[in-house]
């Protein structure tokens, strides 16, 4: 081991320590620039989650109950889409929204709205695929009883969504985590414009490339703390509600 290696490693340890200090400082002083980035991150990812849930959950429920030719192919495609790389999702939305693209006249490129769309497109398949999996078990249990009541597949969809609400909470959290963590899509369609489309992940990428590792790490810690807090909150709500509903 050479001297420079050792230096380098102790430098990394110092980075980590100072990152914690920086993160605490950012939170303690409520650094306005950082807060704005943080809030935009939350706003974009939560909005994208809501949009994706509106489409993804009913689609997942429908796939759980419906039997049609080609269903297997749809499921395979959906599962594959779960692994859609964020940059590819970003690129597709970029092509749609760019000035020459079909939605170009809307002028949405490099706005938070474009970022919402990109993240929603990214996570909708995840929500659909996971909720399909979760609700299929429930449907197996309910199918005969609901058919006896005269409820067809269409009527079963809202029933499954409601009765599976606690399991679906976990699905939503998975979607939120994916949206909040991705950087490729928002970078491409948002452009990381300071004070306008800069979010946590793009800020981290920027600080890393500028070499300000402590700041990048501090932002990373902050992002993780936020995701953790959202999960804890959702879990708490879920437990409380499940306690009442059985």
């Amino acid at each position: 081991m050479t001297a420079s290696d050792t230096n380098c490693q102790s430098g990394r340890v110092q980075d980590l320590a100072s990152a914690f200090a920086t993160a605490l400082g950012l939170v303690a002083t409520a650094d306005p620039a950082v807060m704005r980035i943080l809030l935009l991150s939350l706003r974009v990812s939560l909005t994208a989650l809501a949009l994706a849930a509106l489409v993804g959950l009913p689609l997942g429920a429908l796939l759980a109950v419906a039997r049609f030719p080609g269903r297997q192919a749809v499921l395979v495609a959906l599962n594959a889409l779960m692994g859609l790389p964020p940059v590819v999702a970003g690129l597709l939305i970029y092509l749609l929204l760019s000035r020459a693209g079909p939605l170009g006249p809307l002028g949405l490129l490099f706005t938070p709205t474009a970022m919402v769309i990109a993240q929603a497109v990214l996570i909708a398949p995840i929500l659909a695929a996971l909720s399909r999996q979760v609700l299929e078990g429930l449907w197996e249990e309910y199918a005969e009883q609901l058919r006896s009541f005269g409820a067809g597949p269409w009527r079963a969809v809202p029933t499954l969504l409601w009765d599976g609400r606690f399991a679906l909470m976990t699905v939503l959290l998975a979607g939120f985590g994916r949206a909040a963590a991705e950087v490729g899509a928002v970078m491409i369609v948002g452009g990381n414009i300071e004070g306008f489309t800069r979010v946590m992940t793009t800020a981290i990428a920027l600080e890393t490339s500028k070499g300000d590792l402590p700041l990048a790490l501090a932002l990373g810690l902050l992002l993780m703390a936020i995701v953790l807090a959202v999960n804890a909150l959702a879990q708490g709500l879920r437990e409380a509600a499940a306690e009442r509903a059985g």
Partner: protein
Amino acid sequence: MRATESLPRKGLRHVMADLFRPGGARILARTPDPSPIHGRSRIGAGTGGILPLRVEGLCYRAGAVEVLREVGFTLEKGGPSLIIGPNGAGKSVLLRLLHRLLRPSAGQILWGTPEAARRQAMLFQRPVLLRRSVLANAAYPLRLAGLGRAEAMARARAELAQVGLDGLADRPARRLSGGEQQRLALARAAALQPEVLFLDEPCASLDPAATRAVEEIVQALAARGTKIVMTTHDLGQARRLAAEVLFLHRGRLLEQTPAARFFAGPESAEARAFLRGELLW
């Protein structure tokens, strides 16, 4: 019909009152205003009844297994028809076929009217309760049938009172005991006011008092014109409830006999052995 301690007083009073009301073909008619369910002819009043039910040459195969073979019978309006037979005889499968949850491999199931599907209900051997409150469970099929929220709730509450669950209305249904779940499922099926009610071992996990309570409800439903088609392993219960007995053995219908004659001495050797407790499968 005898009063028992186990049936909640309120429920019993209603049962008795409804029982002896003239022309009381309607179940649950505790509110004076006619309900939309009647208007939508979910119940058979006025239109042609869905009985008699004729079953001809009914076969059901699951893979290589022949579950039912050449089963034929006719169910007429009237007292409860009890389907009895050893485990695995095909009783549950038969009820599922009649309720159109399974498709026969061969044979025919002919109802009196084409819209028979909407005018029957079934209580499953293992009841499936929704992940909702007791009250919401009872109201669910009523909402499906087109009732408004308030009316469905009111009717569901009344129905819960009948099975002695009104005190548990707001509890999560899945936290009920097995017997309570069974009674809830019965209340939920009865709330639909079906013309034909299939009951697959409705008392399988009930204590003696609850069993009696359920039997009285079944009798009250039957007295008001609901055709009961029910399976049971409790021969005493079959004796108490049956107007006629259909004896199934290894997927074959060995006899369809009026209850009195069946219990005095069945025609088939298998049924005689079954009554003596000597017939295994």
